[in-house]
């Protein structure tokens, strides 16, 4: 039995330690907002925060999480930047199919947490790991800038 801290709550799970955090969240904790897209750190749809840093949860085994706090898309709205980013996303009508957007929002929030006023190059660097097959990048960039403007 492992004990994880997820979105401020303590959760017990009975899974092998080598299971990626992604599948623990989705199949064992009913937190399906974190998505599966590639399984090899290429698409970013599985992005969560571990100890405040954006992490591809398909690459992190649950045994390696330890006591570090996990935040998922389901909990990000409770953080100040997460709430701002979600609001900016809706105002800019960012989503198309929406499948990549949980990961995009987790990466964007981590960017603002580390850098409240990112420029275009900062946005490129922080968001390069998140694919959007629908091509919503223009509105993602705008939404991040709008959210940053509200932080100021």
């Amino acid at each position: 039995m492992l004990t994880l801290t997820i979105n401020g709550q303590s959760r017990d799970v009975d899974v092998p330690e080598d299971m990626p955090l992604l599948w623990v969240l989705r199949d064992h904790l009913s937190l399906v907002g974190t998505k599966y897209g590639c399984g090899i750190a290429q698409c970013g749809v599985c992005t969560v925060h571990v100890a405040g840093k954006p992490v591809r949860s398909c690459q992190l085994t649950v045994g390696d999480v330890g006591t570090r706090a996990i935040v998922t898309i389901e909990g990000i709205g409770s953080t100040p930047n997460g709430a701002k980013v979600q609001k900016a996303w809706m105002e800019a009508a960012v989503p198309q199919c929406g499948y990549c957007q949980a990961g995009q929002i987790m990466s964007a929030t981590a960017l603002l947490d580390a850098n409240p006023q990112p420029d275009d190059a900062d946005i490129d660097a922080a968001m390069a790991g998140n694919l959007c097959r629908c091509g919503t990048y223009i509105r993602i960039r705008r939404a991040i800038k709008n959210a940053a403007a509200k932080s100021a």
Partner: protein
Amino acid sequence: MADTQFAQSDAYLSALIREVRSVPPAGVSLTMGRRTFFKLAGASAAGLVLGFRLGGTAFAAETANVDEPDGKDQAMNAFIRIAPDNTITIYSKCPEIGQGIKTSFGVIIADELDADWNHVVMEQADINPKVYGSQGAGGSTSIPHAWDQLRQAGAGAKAMLVAVAAGQWAVDSSQITARDSVLTHAASGRSATYGSLAVAAAKMPVPDPKSLKLKSRADYRLIGKRYRGVDDPKVVSGQPLFGIDVQLPGMVYATYTKCPAAGGKVRSFNANEIKALHGVLDAFAVDGTGMMVEVMPGVAIIARDTWSAFQAKDKLQVDWDLSEASRDSTSQFSAEARKQAANFPQKPDDNIGDVDKSFANAAKTVEAYYEYPFAAHVPLEPMNTTAHWHDGVMEMWVPTQQPDRGLPIVAKVAGIAPEKVVMHQTRVGGGFGRRLVNDYACEAAAIAKRVKDPVKLQWTREDDFAHDFYRPAGYHQFKGAIDKGGRLDAWQEHFITFTADGKKEASGANLTDNLRYSIKAPNLRRAKTMFPLRIPTGAWRAPGDNAQVFAAQSFMHELSLASGRDHVEFLLDAVNRDVPELVPKDRTVNFSPSRATGVIKMCADKAGWGKTLPKGSGLGLAWCYSHAGHVAQAVELSVDANKRIKIARILVVLDVGPIIDMAGSQAQAQGASTDALSTAMGLKINIENGLIQEQNYNAYPILRMPFAPMTIDPYFIQSDNPPTGMGEPAFPALAPALGNAIFAATGERVRQLPLRDLGYSLAV
């Protein structure tokens, strides 16, 4: 045997593409007039919409059945429920795949209903084509197909509410006005909410759709404004929405492994080893139906969670019978096409005027060879379906573009009557044409019949790359003639493509009618050569057009240069050429030279056509008629010494009639342009000895944020034609506009995709 089955699968897909492509001619009511009105019988515990048709003599008896207890939501028809608190629930009948239909359909109904949009709740309808008619999402046809039906549903419900108020107030219904879910009689100062009238209204006779007066454009209150996607609050907070998010009590998880070379069969596999693995509950071989669009042979692994199933899949060893498997090779196709390009076939498909005479008398002739590769769809949500075989019913949750077409096929595969299949629609994490095929739903049904619990079939990303219905490659040898007046005089095209059945083109591999009508040369000759192909092909966003327009409109630019005339002037002349043989006889084709002229002119104007650009910079333009839309695109860019392309801006001008949701339409225009840039720059599927070489996104470089253009400006000419779809038209003209811009900047002609094969890349 095997060949027949390949051909059958392909025939199914080809028919599907034809069906989803056709757009109704203007002014024809598609559904209500003929189908009659219907009501919603109520919602079962499972949230299932049970519908039946109303009409004629059965009408009275059936209305009696649909009475809801007072104080509950009242069903006005299969699309609309009204609650006492004035909340209006609207059912979207078609799949939401990112094209924004769940929002647009709601806006169309709510506008006719004069509903208060702030209190509309959108829900996904379940699958029942008897009630809803077509319930697919493909070919950009959802809007044109449903336009009349949805407006009539809204107007019909409003008429029932008005009839009740007129009776209660003893006034003429013509004196009652509707706005924001409230009816008002101005003269007496009376008003009532829809919610307060719904119980009585639901009992009113359903009006004859022909008696309904629909709004004219000037009366629209909701259509044409900007909307946030109705599911966006759930999307941004990670609520369950997609097929992959479905969870049921006691659910188990499955993978399905097919032969990496299409058509291979299972001889045996290491069953004992697999079944002994941690978390694995069962493993078995499935014979399948042998049809690519249904179930091909493979091995199912059932496990307690996805990870255990994936781990076991990694350890799976299958002895494949490859005797009937594909040995296709794209490098061979490419080499062979180049060799055969010059051998123009004896028997042309199109033959107008006298091409040979035109070539003999021409002021100039131009020849060029174009080629583009196979491509995969790979939407970001991998294929999946949850199925539960219980009580003689196959209950399914399917992220699909064609649930209505999938349902009977699933029934056939499961060996049950279609009435015994209950299909729930989920939000779909991208379609692009991949999910027009319901193969993964059929596999889930076949597996579910052998598992007592609900089971979620989950494809890996590698499965998705290996078992797609690919966009076929194509090879075009062109020869064109310019007459002494500098006009396009002849167009000859040898199209080298693929066949699954040895007779006609494989699905998605035919030269599109769009191009046939819109390349207006007075002397025109086309013929094709077809290579046999075992790998399945299908509809990929803007099928055919997505690559053929690149070849045709790049060559058109070459011809304009040979003519010595301005490209835009040359295009406008060609589009408006009077060639009687090229006037569409098919009434479903709405190609219009004047609409084409409108978008080309506006695009040139907005792009600053003719302006002087610095050395190394270029402006390119192209246009297309695709999926009922008339579109022009322009790209302004610069290219450095290392062939790095910096996009300055992209413009897209569309005439798709009136816009329903401006924000959603802009998103489609930007998204399709981005997808087209991504595909033109980098996407290519290589096949060797029947094996797809690209296995995941690391080998298939979909465009990422640092390379995304900073501006893509969409413009709409909102002509008075019936509205048509936005999912596809903004794709095809981007690649030729890009190639033409590269030529303008560098003098180097792009005749091959993807551009990365020619050494080009995008600058950050």
